[in-house]
């Protein structure tokens, strides 16, 4: 049975290893798609709709075409078709410089017949709303209904009840490198694409299908990638447009979205509204849960969320619908559906606990079947100093009031089959590890090096890792769902083990020892029964001559595990005069199985907490119902966390077993709930809508007084 071995035997796995790409990233040498400059390259731009809903009556591109430096102008929508959200594509240009492309876009004249729009859920659900999706009566999808147990009996048994509405708004991903591509056709049958993507093979296959080419005629390269968070799968319209502009002009074309485009069309986290009625028994058991909810993913569906979340309720009924609005489509965003579900559930848990007169942590212990989180509750309470919290919410003295809260989360992250990899040992002692995954900032390149180096007795920096290129033809899946490391690590491990075995077979005769007696040391190979027979790695590899060893691997279920439980505790301080909320400390305890690289795992946990913090206190897409436009499609008005918002973060890598579990998403899940509960504990008034901005806090305080 394959195993990662005991922690005590690991030289590298589980330690803190600096990432291989560090030097390139700190010196500016790392080349992202945005940085690719090809000879004679043109710059692409897309003209987008400024209105939320209209029929296209005409597009006049003649002036744009006449502008010196413009090489191509192509329409992206047919006359007579409907534009359904701000930002939808109308036409594209390619020009010698980005500034000329910008000028050319302004010279395209568009004749539109505006149609009535809806950009908020409330407007879309109103009786008088225009129908914006022909297949959805009342702009709502068919309800998704789930029933379990006996709801009425559950409420009869309940000693306390809470009825409340929780809401989280649409958030955008804010990838710092916008979505985009550089496309270059070598001839009519072969093209190379530098793509800012989370999945090189997905992009390759999409391009191949679109242009009716064989997959191996399309090469996709993603050496470094500037943030995706779930929004960068597939080339999108902008990718195909870049390829089309390149094909027409015969030149390489770079087409990156603008910051505004990125907010409007490159995906978002759907909103969530839950109208919940729930009950618990006197002894603290959740007993009944009735939820009617909705969310919007723009014009598309996909606004689902799990409810109830994490905690078990025996009697329930849930009903969810998607609401269509005239806004850009949702895309997966870091733990899709979960952070918003966790915020609602953890708020509800605290409200029920208070009605029972029970410590909210104790109430969770009773209702949470997960043993890992049970241990995390104990550890987290110690770390944050749970006994310091206000027993009576809002009872602190002074203008600035402190409070504490807790939140929980659950994710899968078990990986899957489908990754191919090769580990090659050359006679000069060099080692290559090649696979088709991509390093989107998670550090998987370094994880691969650590695994191979551990297996072969080398240093991570000795391993040449090649990822982010479809050309070697070694497939791997997209980097999403916290699946990368658990999908890739087992294959790399077994490939390295197979290469080592082959090397042992080749050098066993020279060492006059059975293959089974050979072991790797640190940069050496020795015979376990006779340590005088030790040779250096280079000597061993030197025996290979012209024949390199190159071995593949396989995915082994025993090397990974599904299921990542998380718990976070927050301490906050609220200024009751200004409404300013300062998060003082977050304790984040994240179950992650075997952390191959503890350093980069901590980075992942920090990053998840900070994204959750943004959702909790800052982030919201603001739509103007009158004009149908997004009012904050930039980085001034759409706030993401900056240095001043960062609390003390204690990230605890809670490694519960020796199997790999992905951890990219789960650390962002419990944060908003923990912070919202801490705010309640501080001021004694509940805010059921994110983000927790000063205006909401002041309004809530005023209502409490009144």
């Amino acid at each position: 049975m394959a195993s990662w071995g005991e922690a005590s035997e690991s030289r590298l796995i589980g330690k803190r290893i600096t990432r291989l790409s560090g030097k390139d990233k700190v010196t500016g040498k790392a080349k992202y798609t945005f940085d690719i400059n090809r000879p004679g390259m043109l710059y692409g731009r897309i003209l987008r709709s400024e209105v939320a809903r209209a029929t296209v009556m005409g597009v006049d591109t003649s002036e744009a075409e006449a502008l010196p430096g413009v090489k191509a102008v192509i329409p992206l929508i047919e006359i007579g078709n409907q534009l359904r959200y701000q930002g939808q594509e109308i036409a594209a240009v390619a020009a010698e410089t980005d500034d000329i492309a910008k000028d050319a876009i302004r010279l395209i004249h568009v004749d539109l017949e505006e149609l009535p729009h809806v950009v908020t859920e409330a407007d879309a659900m109103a009786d008088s709303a225009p129908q914006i999706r022909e297949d959805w009566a009342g702009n709502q999808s068919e309800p998704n209904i789930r029933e379990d147990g006996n709801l009425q009996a559950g409420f009869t048994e309940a000693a306390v009840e809470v009825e409340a509405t929780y809401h989280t708004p649409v958030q955008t991903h804010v990838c710092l490198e916008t979505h985009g591509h550089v496309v270059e056709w070598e001839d009519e049958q072969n093209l190379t694409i530098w793509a800012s993507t989370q999945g090189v093979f997905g992009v390759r296959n999409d391009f191949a299908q679109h242009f009716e080419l064989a997959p191996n005629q399309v090469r996709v390269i993603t050496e470094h990638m500037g943030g995706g968070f779930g929004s960068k799968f597939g080339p999108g319209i902008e990718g195909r447009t870049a390829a089309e502009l390149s094909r027409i002009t015969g030149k390489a074309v770079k087409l990156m979205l603008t910051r505004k485009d990125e907010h409007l069309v490159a995906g978002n986290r759907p909103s969530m509204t839950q109208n919940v009625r729930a009950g618990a028994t006197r002894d603290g058991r959740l007993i009944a849960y009735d939820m009617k909810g909705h969310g919007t993913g723009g014009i598309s569906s996909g606004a689902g969320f799990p409810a109830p979340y994490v905690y078990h309720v025996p009697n329930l009924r849930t009903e969810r619908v998607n609401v269509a609005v005239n806004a850009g489509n949702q895309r997966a965003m870091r733990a899709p559906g979960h952070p918003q579900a966790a915020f609602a559930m953890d708020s509800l848990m605290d409200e029920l606990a208070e009605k029972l007169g029970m410590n909210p942590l104790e109430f969770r212990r009773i209702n949470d079947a997960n043993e890992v989180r049970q241990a995390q509750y104990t550890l987290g309470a110690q770390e944050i100093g749970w006994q310091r919290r206000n027993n009576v919410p809002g009872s602190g003295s002074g203008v600035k009031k402190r409070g504490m809260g807790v939140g929980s989360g659950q994710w899968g992250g078990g990986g899957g089959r489908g990754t191919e990899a090769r580990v090659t040992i050359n006679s000069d002692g060099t080692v290559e590890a090649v696979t088709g995954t991509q390093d989107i900032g998670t550090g998987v390149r370094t994880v691969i090096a650590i695994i191979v180096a551990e297996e072969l007795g080398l240093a991570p920096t000795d391993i040449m890792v090649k990822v982010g290129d479809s050309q070697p033809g070694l497939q791997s899946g997209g980097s999403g769902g916290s699946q990368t490391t658990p999908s890739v690590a087992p294959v790399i491990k077994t490939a390295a083990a197979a290469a080592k075995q082959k090397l042992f077979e080749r050098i066993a005769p020279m060492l006059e020892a059975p293959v089974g007696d050979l072991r790797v040391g640190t940069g050496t190979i020795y015979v376990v029964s006779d340590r005088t027979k030790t040779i250096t790695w280079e000597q061993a590899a030197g025996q290979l001559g012209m024949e390199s060893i190159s071995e593949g691997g396989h995915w082994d279920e025993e090397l990974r595990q599904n299921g990542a439980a998380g718990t976070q505790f927050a301490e906050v301080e609220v200024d009751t005069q200004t409404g300013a909320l300062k998060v003082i400390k977050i304790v984040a305890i994240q179950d992650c199985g075997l952390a191959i690289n503890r350093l980069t795992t901590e980075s992942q946990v920090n990053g998840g907490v900070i994204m959750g913090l943004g959702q909790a206190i800052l982030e919201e897409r603001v739509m103007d119902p009158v004009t149908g436009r997004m009012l904050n499609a930039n980085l001034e008005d759409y706030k993401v966390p900056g240095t001043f918002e960062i609390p003390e973060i204690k990230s605890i890598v809670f490694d519960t077993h020796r199997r790999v579990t992905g951890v990219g998403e789960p650390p962002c899940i419990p944060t908003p709930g923990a912070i919202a509960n801490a705010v309640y504990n501080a001021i004694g008034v509940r805010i059921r809508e994110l983000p927790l901005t000063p205006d909401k806090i002041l309004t809530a305080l005023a209502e409490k007084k009144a």
Partner: protein
Amino acid sequence: MSDKEKKQGTSISRRNFLKGVGTGTVAATVVPSVLIGSEEAAEAQAGDAISTATIQLNINEKMYEVEVEARTTLLTVLRDGTDTSGDNVDLTGAKLICDRGECGGCTVMVDGKSVYACMMLAIDAQGKKITTVEGLANGDDLHPVQEAFIQHDALMCGFCTPGFIVSSAALLNENKKPTLEEIKTGLSGNTCRCGTYPFIFDAVKTASRKM
């Protein structure tokens, strides 16, 4: 204002706006979106040949001669500029992220002080000493800030990293031993979306001890 501009009334293209106001921090001002594609905007562009100038810039202690328009930003020269000798400048460490002086991804040093390269016109950078992230290391010897960023894993995707590195180096130029609050203030003009801030703070502290 010229007669022509007066006639156009409220219609302003980015280029004419720049001409009218002169140079400075207006580089990132965008045309109001209502004008995009409008007749006024087109009129503002038509028959208005783009004038260029050849300027010299001292970047990372090397002189470049580049042809620029009035509107060309320093960042555009660094990333997309071509020296009159025909070589691309190709200093792509500084990134364009927000395009309006909000995120710090394009931070470079101009005469030792951190500057948003997206907000500075190239012509205003003449006669000044420009240092980009590529110019911080001394050959293979990394700047202490760069070393510390690697050591503390103060980067993930790395797209914001060049801006943070330059801002951190500029901060330490002015304040050798910053407190945590001073680090937060010094780097408040930079944005990271992966959430690497805690380790960035650690890295700057480590670098300050080594400098």
